[in-house]
């Protein structure tokens, strides 16, 4: 290749790369103050606009798995089927049984949606690089609330999310609904422990509970091996699924499916035993709210999975074709692969028996998670020893300058 062409290529590459770096002050406005609002728009816009598409993906993929045609009536390849469904639910009669607990019956579906949406507040969508007036670069995670308890907030949101289901089951005044709600409560409490411990394995290694900080902690060379080439920095091998030695990500993935009450853990709405479980008595838009809440919950736990175990906005390799795709695209890709996993599992696995569900949660996943936490805590202590001997202070806090 001639030298001039090579130079212009380098120039092009630099200019594209600089397009991702924003000045900190634009006409006297401190752009970093706008980050939370941008994240807010991103979270709401993404989670609400992707919903019909998710339903479409699920139907098409299930059709493929079950060797059927899938949606094919409304729009090309059934793409408008979800919109048609929403239209139908919108105009359907909103039937309310006589003996329900009115207030709770109305609150429950919207509680589900509200709590599911609020979980997005601490998710880091992307990294924004600001150039300060003196030329130094500052990395800020694109999130609504850059708080130090991000991970705990997510756990809190997912544990509060069960109230919507439990209240719906109770307020419906129907035995099937009640049993569905009870099952949901028992299931969420059981799997929350394994989920929390699996996430704790990562916290031990990252040294922070801030989700942005956890993603920054993955932007290093794999296992701290400094002799590796720089294109592996923040690569697929340094994300926490591998750095925490694979077991936590498996535990978390199982627990997240159980937490969102999806197949094969969809016992709260097992149709062969419980009619439709906790939402038996709900119709029209209230049923749609449960449906939306379930999907938003799925998005939230998949996003947490992507941010904690799969490197958040980081590209799979720190080199040319990957780094030019903006971070949020990678993040969305990772979330969507989580959703595809959901659909794949739903299409292939049979529903668990109730005692098998409890056995898996308490007798298998919880002990494994505990042992693994123990192993990883020891491992990260050992990893710090050479750093201490070299007299270098091991401060993850330096990486967290963006956090409060």
């Amino acid at each position, binding site marked *: 290749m001639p030298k001039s062409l090579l130079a212009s290529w380098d120039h092009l590459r630099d200019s594209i790369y600089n397009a991702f770096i924003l000045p900190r002050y634009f006409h006297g406005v401190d752009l970093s103050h706008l980050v939370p609002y941008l994240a807010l728009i991103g979270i709401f816009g993404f989670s609400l606009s992707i919903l019909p598409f998710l339903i479409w993906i699920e139907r098409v993929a299930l059709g493929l798995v079950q060797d059927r045609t899938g949606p094919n009536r409304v729009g090309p390849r059934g793409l408008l089927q979800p919109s048609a469904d929403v239209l139908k639910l919108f105009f359907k009669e909103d039937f309310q049984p006589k003996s329900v607990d009115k207030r709770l019956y109305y609150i429950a579906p919207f509680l589900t949606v509200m709590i599911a949406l609020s979980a997005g507040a601490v998710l880091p969508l992307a990294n924004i690089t600001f150039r300060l007036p003196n030329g130094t670069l500052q990395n800020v995670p694109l999130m609504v609330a850059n708080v130090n*308890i991000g991970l705990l907030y997510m756990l809190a949101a997912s*544990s*509060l999310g069960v109230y919507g289901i439990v209240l719906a*089951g109770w307020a419906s005044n129907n035995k099937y609904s009640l049993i569905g709600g009870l099952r949901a409560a028992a299931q969420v*409490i059981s799997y929350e422990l394994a989920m929390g411990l699996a996430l704790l394995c990562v916290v031990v290694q990252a040294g922070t*509970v801030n989700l942005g900080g956890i993603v920054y902690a993955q932007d290093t060379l794999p296992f701290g091996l400094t002799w590796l080439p720089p294109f592996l920095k923040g690569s697929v091998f340094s994300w926490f699924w591998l750095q925490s030695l694979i077991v936590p990500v498996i535990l978390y993935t199982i627990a997240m499916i159980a937490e969102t009450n999806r197949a094969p853990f969809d016992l709260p709405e097992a149709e062969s035993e419980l009619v439709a479980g906790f939402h038996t008595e709900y119709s029209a838009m209230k049923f749609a709210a449960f449906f939306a809440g379930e999907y938003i919950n799925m998005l939230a736990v998949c996003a947490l999975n992507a941010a904690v175990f799969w490197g958040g906005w980081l590209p799979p390799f720190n080199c040319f074709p990957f780094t030019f795709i903006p971070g949020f695209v990678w993040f969305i890709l990772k979330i969507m692969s989580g959703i595809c996993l959901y659909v794949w599992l739903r299409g292939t696995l049979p529903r668990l028996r109730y005692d098998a569900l409890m056995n898996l949660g308490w007798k298998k996943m919880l002990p494994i998670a505990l042992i693994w936490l123990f192993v990883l805590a020891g491992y990260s202590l050992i990893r710090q020893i050479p750093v201490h001997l070299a007299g270098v202070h091991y401060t993850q806090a330096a990486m967290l300058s963006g956090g409060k």
Partner: protein
Amino acid sequence: MAPALVLFYILAFLCVGGAVAMVTSNNPVRSALSLVISFLSLAAFYITLDAQFIAAVQVVVYAGAIMVLFLFVIMLLNLGAPEVVKKTRSFLPLATTLLAIIFPMVLFGFGVFAGLDGPTPSGASKLGTVGAVGRTLYSPTLPWLLPFEATSVLLLVAVVGAIVLARRKA
């Protein structure tokens, strides 16, 4: 009024209101939900004091786990039917009113409400973060490590005891 004070009064109203509704409601599920509201507003109080970790734990443990367990038990025992408690003539309303008047006066007498409008103590802002709580609990130089571990052993004993009792019956 300062915005912080307005927030304080709103949260205080929710918190105390939730607690009162929890005691007065005849319906066990509504009682439990009122307690959840009370717990959540307590968590919001912790956030206004910059104690984010305590707030998160308050939500995860109390509002998220313990109250869901309460609701679970209430539903399992099917205590859900309203108007279980028969309205009988008793000294209860009179006693409640008297206590509601006397108790705040006693608190005033002990000076609990003194200095409430002062600024938040400067040391408080760093007390409730993850790092601060962890360092305080696990530091070998502070005396809290042994009590903390002893408490966890006590809880373990309780768990083992519950399992033993449940097994003996079966």
